[in-house]
């Protein structure tokens, strides 16, 4: 089904308030060898905005395509289709073959692996000196040194570490160097691809706090790729949930975690271990969610089978949308989109759902 554009696009804010606007982003990876025609769709028609000065979390499991979105935005992968609007220009059209220096000066990236993202052959200063010089932020040795030192302090490191090699630093320190490297070009947007997942747990929160500080103090927008809903909730203003290459739900982070609407989001949330949670999940309900997610042809909610027709975005709350037939007006009643006439058990089942306090979405 070709979908009604107006209906499935997110609420369109004025372009000036948006750092990045992504529309219809699609990426196919070729499979097999030189002459193979097969391909795998990693990212499927993804739309989202990153409002200026906010952190947008993109949450999903491994293989959901979330890292590919970040790499496409960093222009490390060439998307198969779609547009990326930064600074009012669709950069995939204006800078077709490779990203311009201007783009590199606007959009920066922090990688997942703190061991792999710093070249072991260079000292820390090299990682800051190169962007400073390439983007004309510093020209003399003294300027480079002074600005590098300042960057180090910004990310909570000391100047003397500039002369260290990466292997002399801990994982957390390395990740801070990566953030400093991204900051060196004075970017507007930072793409953070699972910046904490390979760190020791006790230093993770520090990196998240640093991200929040950079947003609050410098107005930097961020796309925060993570598999951890809790970190997304902790630091991100908006959370987008990605499943099998497509966005299935999005909204203000607290609201989304409070009222998860898509079966996948619910499943994901119910699986996160949280000892503080008062309501235990019900295995029967979980099994239904699982089936809805993994076997859409056998979706336990009748009329909500999304294998035949693609669901469109439905608004379920202020700044909160979901792509699931359950919420389409044909299937559900107008007052409570979660209920269907054909499935009287639904309400009781959903009451046993893993979310402690579930309010009916307006």
């Amino acid at each position: 089904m070709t979908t009604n554009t107006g209906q499935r696009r997110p609420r369109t804010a004025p372009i000036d308030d948006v750092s990045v606007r992504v529309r219809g982003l699609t990426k196919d990876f070729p499979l097999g060898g030189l002459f193979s025609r097969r391909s795998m769709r990693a990212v499927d028609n993804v739309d989202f905005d990153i409002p200026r000065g906010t952190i947008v979390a993109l949450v999903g499991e491994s293989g959901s395509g979330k890292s590919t979105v970040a790499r496409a935005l960093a222009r490390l992968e060439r998307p198969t289709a779609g547009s990326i609007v930064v600074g009012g220009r669709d950069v995939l059209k204006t800078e077709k073959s490779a990203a311009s220096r201007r783009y590199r000066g606007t959009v920066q990236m922090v990688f997942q692996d703190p061991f792999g993202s710093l070249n072991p052959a260079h000292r820390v200063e090299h990682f800051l000196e190169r962007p400073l010089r390439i983007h004309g932020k510093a020209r003399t040795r003294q300027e480079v040194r002074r600005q590098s030192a300042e960057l180090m302090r910004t990310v909570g490191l000391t100047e003397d570490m500039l002369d260290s090699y990466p292997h002399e630093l801990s994982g957390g320190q390395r990740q801070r160097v990566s953030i400093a490297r991204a900051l060196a070009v004075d970017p507007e947007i930072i793409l953070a691809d699972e910046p904490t997942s390979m760190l020791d747990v006790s230093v993770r929160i520090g990196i998240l706090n640093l991200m929040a500080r950079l947003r609050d103090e410098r107005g930097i927008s961020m796309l925060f790729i993570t598999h951890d809903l809790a970190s997304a909730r902790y630091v991100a203003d908006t959370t987008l949930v990605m499943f099998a290459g497509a966005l299935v739900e999005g909204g203000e982070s607290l609201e989304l975690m409070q009222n998860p609407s898509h079966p996948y989001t619910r499943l994901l949330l119910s699986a996160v271990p949280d000892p503080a949670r008062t309501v235990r999940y019900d295995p029967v309900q979980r099994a239904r969610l699982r089936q809805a997610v993994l076997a859409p042809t056998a979706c336990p909610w009748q009329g909500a089978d999304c294998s035949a027709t693609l669901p469109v975005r439905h608004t379920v709350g202020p700044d909160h949308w979901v792509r699931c037939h359950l919420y389409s007006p044909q299937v559900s009643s107008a007052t409570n989109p979660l209920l269907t006439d054909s499935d009287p058990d639904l309400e009781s089942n959903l009451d046993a759902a893993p979310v402690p306090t579930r309010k009916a979405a307006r």
Partner: protein
Amino acid sequence: MSVTNPSETVAQATPDAPAVVPASDRRPRRGLLRGILGNRKAAFGAAVLLLFGVVALAAPLLAPGNPSLITAIASQPPSLEHLLGTTAKGQDVLALTMHGARTSLLVGFVVGAAATLVGLLVGVASAYFGRVIDDLLSLVTNVFLLIPGLPLLVILAAFLPPGIGTVVVVLIITGWAGSARVLRSQALSIRSKDFVAAAVVTGEHPLRIMFREILPNMASIVMSTFLACVIFGIGAQAGLEFLGLGDASVVSWGTNLYWASNDGALFTGAWWAFAPSGLCIALVAFALAMVNYAVDEVTNPRLRTTKKGRTRA
């Protein structure tokens, strides 16, 4: 081994999967040289190579004159006058051996350097251009790896005008593929590292990424490839010359053996005619192999032979 696979030693010692090296084994690259210098195997290898290098350079001083000239009675066993005896033609074996070192080492190192360079170019080009170019280049590499070396050497050498130049060219043609395979897989694995992506995002020029980010991390593998290629060069040259495909008028360890065999040294009991050149080839190859193992051990500490054999539970 006269015709050995230059990739064999390298490929086996450094498995393609870097994943098996645990994080604790990650060593700083700058420690490589110090590590090698402090290694007993490397010290032995370097000393032997140095000795041969000095002898090769000083050969005209140590044994003045043209070593192929007939200067003595034929087929003399070692004596004070001729420390290593004389050939069936009456040439001094010691002089032949020392002068032979010049050609053999020269050809070996030239071939080693050139084959490594070609391999490096192919490997780096594969990593740099990716997909289609990489597929084509690795196809060519694999075809060359598969075609048996010695017969190929023979038909190439047979059709080209004889001479040292031919030998060098032919050995490069047959020897580059092994190093290309190893260097390509290393270059590709570094190419896929996040620090390369980070450099791209920073806005670095692709050539700078190639030379400043990727190449410095390939130092140790380039070194072992080079050493393996030199071993290949020296051995294969000797093999070619032994078959009579070199320039028989040039003095080298290979031609010495060719003449020794042609003159029937084996059957006349003149062991001194063929022993020295072969031992020299073996010593040089062994020394190079020792340095190579030292490089491997320094970069992959797990391969070290531990002295205290703790009981396995």
